[in-house]
């Protein structure tokens, strides 16, 4: 094959004529994120669009391009980087990706790409569509909440005897992966495991066998490089700490784990209190703000009217507001109720099952307890949030590095293994 010259962001590159553009770029030291592209699937699926680049300003999937003489492609322009990030955020917003409860967490390709792109939150509201978990197969369990319709299982998976088990069903926005139940029932343990591993996310599970692996052993716990990842741009202007900065914290609809994590700096707390003082917080007895606050750290999303009031109260009194942890950032596990009606949740809690005839049904409802919201809302859908620190919970190091940077301009690197959705 003859070598041709092509251009990435106006830089000349060389590769074999007709080579897939993603591979050709990689040969020239330019990595293009891709989720559904695998060299052995030909033609490429080009379903996920995570590898979006542009030719003459027109967006194209990099995996569907082949290199030719003089080809000019834009890859790392600020717009395209932002576009690719947005596509990943949309994938998260479209499905129900509850990373902290997922078996594939840490081994998930979608998560890994989001880490590499430094995604701390989704700018698009999560749709929380009610999707089914298919328990009908003999051995597999298909969780459609997590399926990103990359089509890998449909195109690539065949049994040892060459038969396809997965297919697409319906079209457009209603597309779903279907399982041939008869064929599935005949699959060997090996084939089943292969199908489970093929799925880049946690949609294909093996009954009783799909489990999260120990932390540290998971594929993406140890990255190839220890480089810092492009997080929220650190504040550049160093501020000289003239006086103690004031910190406030709130726990909304969360589990208090993020507050625990803040305390996990252990003896570092004794150093920290030389730099900052605490105002309103569940860790102090200050119930109303007593002064101007530099930074407010919010744990938990909003599940009731009181959370909303409290969050607005914080926004009013804090210069900078930070969402800490999955619940604050997009609702977290409590948002699993968002696919279920509030009525159904409350009925399950307080009314469900036969009650004696003529009985009065009671759901707690009183002037002294707040009203439950129709669903759980992330903080940034309620007030402006300035920074987001993901994790369930984020590690103590991660939280305080970001806070110190925001307050004092202290330079920091959050290395890949510290950045997690868990």
């Amino acid at each position, binding site marked *: 094959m003859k070598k041709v010259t092509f251009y990435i962001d106006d830089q000349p590159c060389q590769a074999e004529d007709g080579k897939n553009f993603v591979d050709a770029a990689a040969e020239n030291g330019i990595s293009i994120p891709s989720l559904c592209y695998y060299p052995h699937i030909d033609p490429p699926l080009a379903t996920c669009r995570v590898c979006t680049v542009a030719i003459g300003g027109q967006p194209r999937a990099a995996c569907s391009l082949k290199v030719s003489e003089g080809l000019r492609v834009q890859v790392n322009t600020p717009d395209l980087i932002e576009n690719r990030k947005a596509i990943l955020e949309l994938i998260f917003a479209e499905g129900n990706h509850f990373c902290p409860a997922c078996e594939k967490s840490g081994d998930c390709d979608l998560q890994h790409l989001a880490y590499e792109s430094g995604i701390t939150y989704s700018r698009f509201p999560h749709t929380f569509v009610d999707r089914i978990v298919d*328990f009908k197969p003999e051995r597999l369990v298909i969780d459609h909440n997590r399926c990103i319709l990359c089509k890998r299982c449909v195109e690539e998976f065949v049994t040892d005897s060459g038969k396809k088990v997965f297919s697409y069903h319906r079209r457009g926005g209603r597309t779903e992966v279907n399982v041939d139940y008869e064929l599935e029932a005949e699959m060997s343990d090996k084939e089943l495991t292969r199908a489970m591993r093929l799925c880049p996310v946690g949609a294909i599970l093996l009954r009783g066998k799909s489990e999260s692996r120990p932390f540290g052993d998971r594929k993406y716990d140890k990255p190839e490089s220890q480089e810092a990842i492009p997080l929220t741009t650190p504040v550049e202007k160093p501020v000289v700490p003239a006086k103690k900065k004031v910190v406030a914290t709130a726990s909304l609809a969360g589990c208090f784990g993020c507050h*625990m994590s803040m305390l996990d700096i252990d003896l570092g707390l004794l150093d920290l209190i030389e730099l900052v003082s605490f105002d309103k917080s569940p860790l102090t007895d200050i119930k109303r703000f007593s002064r101007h606050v530099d930074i407010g750290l919010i744990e938990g999303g909003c599940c009731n009217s009181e959370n909303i009031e409290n969050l607005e109260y914080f926004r009013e009194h804090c210069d900078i507001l930070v969402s800490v942890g999955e619940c604050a950032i997009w609702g977290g596990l409590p948002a699993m109720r968002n696919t279920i009606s509030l009525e159904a949740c409350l009925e399950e809690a307080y009314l469900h099952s036969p009650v004696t005839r003529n009985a009065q049904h009671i759901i707690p409802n009183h002037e002294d307890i707040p009203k439950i919201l129709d669903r759980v809302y992330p903080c940034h859908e309620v007030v402006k949030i300035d920074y987001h620190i993901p994790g369930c919970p984020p590690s103590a190091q991660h939280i305080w590095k970001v806070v110190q940077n925001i307050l004092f301009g202290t330079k920091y690197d959050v290395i890949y293994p510290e950045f997690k959705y868990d």
Partner: protein
Amino acid sequence: MGKKIIIDPVTRVEGHGKVTVLLDDNHRVEDAFFHIVEFRGFERFVQGRPYWEAPVLVQRLCGICPVSHHLAAAKAIDQIAGLDPDDLSPTATKLRRLLHFGQVLQSHALHFFYLASPDLLFGLDAEAAKRNVVEVAIANKDLARKGIQIRQFGQEIIKALAGKRIHGIMAVPGGVHKTFTRQERDAFLNGEGVPSIDNIIDWMVGVLDFMKKYHETNAPWLDYFATYPSGHLGMVTQDGALELYDGPLRAIDAQGNQTLLAPATDYVDHFAELVKPWSYLKFPYLRELGEEKGWNRVGPLARINVSTYISTPLAEAERKIFRDYTGGKTNNMTMHTHWARLIEMLHCAEAIRDLLNDEAILGDDLRREGIQRSQGIGVIEAPRGTLIHHYEIDDKGMITRCNLIVSTTHNNEPMNRAVKWVAQNVLDNRFEVTEQMLNQVEIAIRAYDPCLSCATHALGKMPLYVEVQDRRGNIIQTATRS
């Protein structure tokens, strides 16, 4: 027109609570309530999930005691995987116990040093701005350092076993998924990166001495404050010792008469719950005794009350001193819960030392398999008390039903009694109510170390009794379901 005093939020507890005190025109207390103001509904959305996800998913109930939920769920899921507690390998059981002791140690340390100590150190007249861990660190750096490091030790045990300090994973159906290495073990014995376990035990003995001295000088207050008779509930071993991981449930009344001794998995036969319109948290009670008499305290004080001895020597010596103070009778003094909590911490530290020296924890027989069953009930003593997880699945492994009774739920009635006590004894008939007086309400609540984050997920499928009250507490309508 009467007046309403509101304490909102209740601080230095985990989660969200609020107190209202109703006063009449003459400043007399009419009633007082401790409201749990949040609702998350885990039991509903766990339905429809695969059973093996439960131990990972439900631990998000709580960031302070995730290990308790992880293990309670795991014990239930073991049964669904066809295994009773005795069917697990000794290595798996011991590693889980080690994890649990680490957890109880760190959670108790968090509560005592970070949340409750300001009330004890600074007294009833301290200003709000002073009552927090930062001020403790300034006033008593040595105590703060030890407290921080005791919690750190517990957290590091959890991290070594479960991968991270908060929301780690260790238990899988039928066992655990990771070995504990000799190197990891030795770090805790020798004090590499953390204080050694012997150090922790020494410090705990010292903290208990501090507590006993504190009690000597403050006995009138500690013995009197928010004291009221109640039942007590906790887990024991078959021969009656304090037990945190697995064993039957025992309950006694305020005089020490046994009101329950039953396998924990029979809980459905013995407990029922009450819903009240002014709180999202339900009120459990023993069916045999009814709602008026059947409610129990749970947690450290209750556990010391229902058990006859502690298996580790230093903690047992401390338990005896504690029991002798009440002449061997049941202790109903709310503030003594702090003392009991410290005794449990010493026990945890001793138990951790014993397990670390047990070669079985380094074994590699991690996991057993059995034949799938349709339900599992996991009961454990979480730091705050008896925790019950109950799951049912269909033949494909989908969770069809989930019932959780978290520790703080049992303490709902006791905390409300404590709040009423303070209202009637401190706030009643006062023309001026000070902030310090209101803090006394919270001091009473804090003794129970309530975890309102845990509590706010409870939905429950227990037999239910609902009552509708008017403002004066007169019952105007009732309903039951079984």
